[in-house]
């Protein structure tokens, strides 16, 4: 095995969405800097948007929405636990990002007057902007990387952040999953854009990679941030999404909403007021799924042919184009019948919920010189446009940091030797356990013990099982650089599983609907838990959780807005009697 030592100024880890934006903006900020982008796959087709994206979920466009309104919406959707400064920073720069993407050649839907055709999907405001030609997204980004001359190296699995003797980010370590070379990068600032923890839960199909998220995103950024000593925030606010059953891709009922489509129960009736994703919506989805009115369906069969064709074009040619092929094989046609939906396995993802590596409104983590953006960074409900916007912040700030705060401090070479030893250990084990088997067992336990509704005793058992698997991992073997990548991902998934269990045990209340539905503490408890819960590595290397106060609001909430997302369920009234349970009851009476 060879070792490659590389020097750069700004190191960007991850070339999906936030990463390319960060690299381009760092280079534009200071063209003299060397900017190196490392990608586990290939930047041409990597990350959550490898095939494109069908629309913007959170466009804050003047004339349609205001940053204040959006900040309120996300505050309410996230049950009040947000750093509003971070959400507001996104909201005020959202339109600038759209304009930049527009300049770069991304096509957004516009109306006959040339104005952006934004649609209302959220409970309160109007932020959804379709991108009928969103399949070009990665090409557009690649062109920009070439234009500003970012150095790109593909097929590098980054495993640890390198720290200098002052505990400041000084590069990263990893390996090439084709050649098996050990890679050490010395950098002056480091940006992590490694995506969601998409391989935490196990899809029912039995395919390890048949996940909701791009399975390349195993949670690498979460594990690296933890081992570097950074704070992670609100990890117990899991990602769980509605999807097309078995296909395991986003159902996107909210994309069909403006066209008249909706999520229905087995009677073909609407049961939630708003298809925008939130924990509260997912709780109602779950209640319906397991109650007598399940399963849950995507209902489009009442719509006109032209409308359905348009929906098909949007949903089958952008984000997950194999969807049309799946429906064809199942003989499920939107025109003829409702399409069965289900819920995804659990994961971490701030892009959809709020579980991420903590960052402030400058995309800074708690480690100096270390930045994070995109699905792995803690800005809630940030989606693709938030990844671009925070990638922009991270790139500019990481470049600026080099000119101002950066100091050349020696590094302890011991961490490099230790990491070399750790990475290549599975290549030295003979007749060991294949990584795929350990991964399957680990993720099955994640499903068995961590999937909400969360039960204390089950989560305690999870910690015992995970500890046993940690021992098994010493007997894991890899027979090629490719399998070594899978072996190192097992370590990442183990770290994320432990963090998911510990973070969930720490917050002793229920919040965010299904995302943190704790059976032993069924009520929301604002008196004790209206706080962020952070998790980090202590001096002994153990995981510790602690409370952090919610930052003062920039945009105050009106009394009647506070519980807007608590009124998800459609309450039907017949004379003299309520047919449906009240929302409060529905949220706690789950089995």
């Amino acid at each position: 095995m060879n070792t490659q030592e590389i020097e750069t100024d700004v190191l960007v880890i991850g070339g999906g969405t936030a990463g390319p934006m960060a690299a381009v903006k760092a280079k534009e900020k200071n063209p003299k800097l060397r900017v190196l982008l490392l990608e586990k796959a290939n930047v041409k087709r990597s990350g959550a948007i490898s095939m494109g994206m069908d629309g913007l979920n959170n466009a804050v466009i003047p004339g349609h929405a205001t940053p204040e309104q959006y900040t309120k919406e996300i505050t309410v959707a996230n049950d009040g636990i947000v750093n509003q400064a971070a959400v507001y920073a996104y909201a005020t720069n959202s339109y600038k990002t759209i304009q930049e993407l527009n300049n770069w050649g991304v096509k957004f839907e516009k109306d006959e007057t040339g104005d952006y055709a934004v649609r209302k999907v959220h409970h309160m405001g109007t932020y959804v902007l379709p991108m009928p030609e969103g399949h070009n997204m990665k090409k557009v980004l690649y062109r920009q990387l070439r234009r500003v001359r970012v150095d790109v190296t593909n097929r590098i699995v980054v495993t640890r952040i390198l720290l200098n003797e002052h505990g400041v980010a000084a590069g990263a370590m990893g390996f090439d999953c084709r050649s098996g070379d050990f890679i050490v990068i010395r950098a002056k600032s480091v940006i992590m854009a490694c995506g969601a923890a998409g391989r935490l839960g196990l899809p029912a199909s039995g395919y390890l990679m048949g996940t909701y998220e791009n399975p390349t995103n195993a949670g690498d950024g979460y594990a690296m941030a933890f081992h570097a000593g950074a704070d992670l925030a609100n990890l117990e606010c899991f990602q769980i999404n509605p999807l097309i059953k078995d296909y395991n891709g986003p159902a996107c009922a909210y994309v069909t909403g403006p066209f008249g489509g909706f999520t229905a129960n087995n009677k073909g009736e609407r049961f939630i007021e708003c298809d925008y994703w939130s924990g509260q919506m997912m709780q109602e989805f779950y209640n319906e799924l397991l109650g007598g009115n399940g399963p849950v369906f995507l209902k489009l069969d009442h719509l006109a042919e032209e409308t359905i064709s348009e929906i098909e074009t949007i949903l089958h040619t952008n984000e997950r184009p194999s969807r049309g092929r799946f429906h064809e094989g199942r003989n499920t046609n939107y025109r003829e019948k409702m399409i069965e939906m289900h819920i995804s396995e659990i994961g971490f993802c701030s892009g959809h919920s709020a579980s991420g590596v903590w960052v402030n409104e400058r995309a800074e983590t708690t480690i100096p010189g270390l930045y994070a953006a995109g699905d792995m960074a803690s800005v809630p409900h940030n989606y693709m446009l938030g990844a671009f916007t925070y990638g922009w912040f991270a790139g500019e700030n990481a470049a600026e940091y080099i000119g101002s705060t950066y100091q050349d401090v020696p590094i302890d070479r011991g961490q490099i030797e230790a990491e070399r030893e750790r990475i290549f250990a599975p290549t030295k084990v003979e007749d060991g356990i294949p990584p795929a088997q350990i991964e399957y067992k680990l993720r099955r336990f994640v499903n068995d013990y961590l999937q909400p509704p969360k039960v204390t005793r089950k989560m305690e058992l999870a910690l015992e099982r995970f500890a046993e698997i940690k021992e098994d991992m010493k007997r894991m073997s890899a027979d090629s650089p490719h399998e070594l990548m899978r072996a190192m991902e097992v370590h990442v998934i183990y770290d994320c599983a432990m963090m998911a269990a510990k973070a969930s045990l720490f917050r002793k209340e229920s919040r965010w609907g299904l995302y943190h539905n704790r059976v032993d503490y069924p009520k929301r408890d604002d008196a004790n838990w209206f706080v962020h819960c952070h998790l980090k590595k202590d001096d002994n290397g153990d995981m510790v959780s602690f409370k952090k106060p919610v930052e003062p609001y920039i945009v105050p909430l009106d009394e009647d807005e506070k519980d807007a997302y608590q009124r998800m369920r459609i309450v039907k009234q017949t004379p003299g009697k309520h047919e449906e349970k009240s929302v409060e009851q529905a949220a706690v009476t789950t089995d």
Partner: protein
Amino acid sequence: MPIAIHRTSVPVSVDESKCIAEKGCTVCVDVCPLDVLAIDMIKKKAFMKFDECWYCMPCEKDCPTGAVTVEIPYLLS
């Protein structure tokens, strides 16, 4: 622990009459997010080496000769 290999059907198929890997083309191998495709060095044709597919389709969309087809993996089709 002793190891056994078990047979499995995989979702990516390559029409070898159309595949131009022998001319140096590696597009499908390059674009796969999971790095599961490879070139058979004897036949000089692309094939799916690992059963780790996300059925995302860059290999099919980006193939310059239309040689690659992604089917929905059997267990979830």
